[in-house]
């Protein structure tokens, strides 16, 4: 066969490859989800719920600070009260429950959990309180400054580890101040748990995503405050799947609910955690896509759930 014919055959082969690639989507679908489409979630109906993240109008009622008048009558708590409705009497005369409570089929909570309300902080004198307040403001300012500096450069794995280590309370390093955003309800009930392993998936992994993913998970985890019915009573559970986009500036957009099952308050807990966590850390300079699309799954489950 002549060389010219052979060249033509090679060109024909290349042309066929280009044609196959061009019409691949039309002929063959490699995406198995298109062949076997996932059934639409029952709760999410046909179209996913889309949350408008625009800031709501500030229509709060004006608040007025009224100082306690100097001549206000102060009634001290009675030192000795025999009424059961008096909290001081209850505190003094705690009724001990029987050693073995009868167990039914309904979900229950053991009641053995730490709470900021049950263990009140010791009263701090006014001078110390003012000093602590000033110290807190100084720490907050330093933290904001370091946060702003950290936002300028992409995080490395070691930097995230050190940041997380600093964020954890360390015993013996002085008095730790409660976070302002931490409610008085403990959410570390021994039988309730929020899964945070493998809950985030990205639209691309062609970058050094590990430090960013760790920091993002930690940031969202800090803002998960489930209702008492889950955290203390263990009555409700559920799963939520959300999707949102993070733009290079760290801005959150297009938060949408893909599906959820279980109690709706846990879905609200998940969406609120995402919203409150925004704005996120800036994406690194070498991020390959115009935005980072995150699909997050929150699993609120109760260990040893019965029945």
């Amino acid at each position, binding site marked *: 066969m002549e060389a010219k014919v052979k060249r033509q055959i090679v060109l024909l082969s290349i042309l066929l490859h280009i044609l196959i690639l061009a019409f691949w989507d039309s002929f063959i679908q490699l995406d198995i989800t298109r062949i076997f489409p996932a059934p639409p979630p029952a709760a999410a109906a046909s179209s996913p719920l889309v949350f408008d993240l625009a800031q709501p109008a500030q229509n709060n009622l004006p608040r007025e600070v009224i100082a306690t008048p100097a001549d206000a009558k102060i009634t001290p708590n009675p030192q000795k009260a025999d009424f059961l409705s008096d909290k001081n009497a209850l505190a003094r005369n705690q009724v001990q429950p029987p050693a073995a409570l009868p167990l039914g089929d309904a979900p229950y909570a053991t009641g053995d959990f730490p709470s900021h309300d049950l263990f009140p902080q010791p009263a701090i004198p006014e001078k110390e309180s003012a000093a602590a307040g000033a110290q807190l403001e100084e720490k907050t300012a330093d933290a904001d400054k370091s946060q702003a500096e950290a936002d300028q450069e992409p995080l490395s794995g070691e930097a995230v580890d050190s940041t997380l280590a600093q964020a954890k309370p360390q015993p013996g390093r002085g008095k730790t101040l409660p976070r302002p955003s931490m409610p008085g309800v403990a959410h570390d009930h021994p039988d309730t748990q929020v899964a945070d392993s493998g809950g985030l998936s990205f639209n691309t*992994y062609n970058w050094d995503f590990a430090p960013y993913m760790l920091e993002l998970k930690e940031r969202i985890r800090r803002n998960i405050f489930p209702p008492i019915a889950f955290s203390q009573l263990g009555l409700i559970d559920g799963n939520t799947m959300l999707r949102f986009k993070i733009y290079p500036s760290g801005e959150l957009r297009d938060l949408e609910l893909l599906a959820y099952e279980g109690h709706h308050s846990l879905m609200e807990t998940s969406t609120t955690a995402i919203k409150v966590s925004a704005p996120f850390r800036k994406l690194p300079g070498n991020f390959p896509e115009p935005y980072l699309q995150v699909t997050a799954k929150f699993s609120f489950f109760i260990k040893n759930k019965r029945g």
Partner: protein
Amino acid sequence: MKNVWEFLVKGGICMIPLFLCSVAGLAIVIEKFISLQRRKIIVPEVVSVLENIKGANDFPLAVSICEKHHGPFANIIRSTLENHNLPREEIKETLLDQGRQEVHQLEKGLGVLETVAGIGPLLGLLGTVLGILKVFKVISVMGVGQATSLAAGISEALITTIAGLFIGIPALVAYNYFSSRADALVLEIEKYSNRLLNKISSFAPVQGK
């Protein structure tokens, strides 16, 4: 097109030799599909001339017709006819030599096709191993708990294996098909050559007369 392009780019560096293998394999398949057609090898005119040879006087006509056609069959027949004056053993030897050369021409390129069928999956496996290496780097940073990210890395690593099998399986099928086709054509050429050899022997003058 964009989705397919992104899919291929995710495969990494091993997709380049896989693409070259694919182009070479398809080119050989096209070339063999054209060149191994029976009408092009076993030329009907030459067969007709062979069937109609009644004596030694017909040999020049048969040679002239064979010269008009190119191909292994016409070349073998022409070479045999040109040497019809030689003894039978020498004609047979010439026929075998010519036959080996023409068979080589028939099977030319099939070795490349066999190589493509062999190294396609191996290149895909190499790409997958390189991708798994990246996944283990991720594990060293994030630990083994990040099932989602690990699964994504492994799925990207498997792209080259998919591409390698996509190339290797059709190449292996084509190689076996064209090999058997070439063998069938060689057998047919051999049949006609033996028939011609018998005719030449029958036309040769008897020794001692």
